[in-house]
């Protein structure tokens, strides 16, 4: 799953720490999600999208992994 968190953060002029604080997780979690190293739960994905005033589909892009 890909995401647009980095782009949106720069649009909103927001640091990783600020986003982490807004959604109630650690900065390490934001780094892991931003780098596509971890797929967040539906709840966290919703909270991140809400922080950017976007829908989940606008922030997270589902791409089926190559077999």
């Amino acid at each position, binding site marked *: 799953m890909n995401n647009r968190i980095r782009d949106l953060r720069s649009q909103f002029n927001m640091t990783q720490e600020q986003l*982490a*604080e807004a959604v*109630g*997780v*650690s*900065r*390490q*979690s934001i*780094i*892991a999600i931003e*780098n*596509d*190293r*971890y797929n*967040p*739960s539906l709840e*966290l994905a919703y909270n991140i999208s809400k922080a950017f005033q976007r829908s989940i589909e606008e922030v997270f892009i589902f791409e089926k992994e190559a077999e």
Partner: protein
Amino acid sequence: MVYLGIYGGLTIGLLGWFFGRQAAAKKRGLDEVYHYIWGKARSTSWYITAAAIYVLMTLELLGIKLNLIPALSILLFVMLSSWAISGAFFSMKLSEPSATSAGRMSLKLSAIIGSVMLLLFSIISAVTGEWRFLLAAIPPIALNIAIAASLARRMNK
């Protein structure tokens, strides 16, 4: 003295765990990624402990006698240390910027673990004068090589 080691170690461990969690909670560290990492680490440590049980049983079959408490101590050490090491490893892996760099880090770690295991069993063999302890190094090193080969194949895709 033995009681001091057993219960002192337990107390220090529990205090470390408690204060560690408190410090992490202050930085919102006890989130879903934390639970994912440490749950995965616990699962990995179970596989490694199961392999260690198998190794100890093989050594028994080869005629190396181990008493109950030393055998349990070895298993406890293997379980706790593999839990801590794999937890730290998964934490670092999730912080890597790309899948390729995470794969490279895994390969390096595999090489280090393999070398440490070989060294450890060589030392045990030398200290006890029992060469058959070296045989116990074969399963974990073979498993390590298989994991490293699988990682390398995935990175080349």
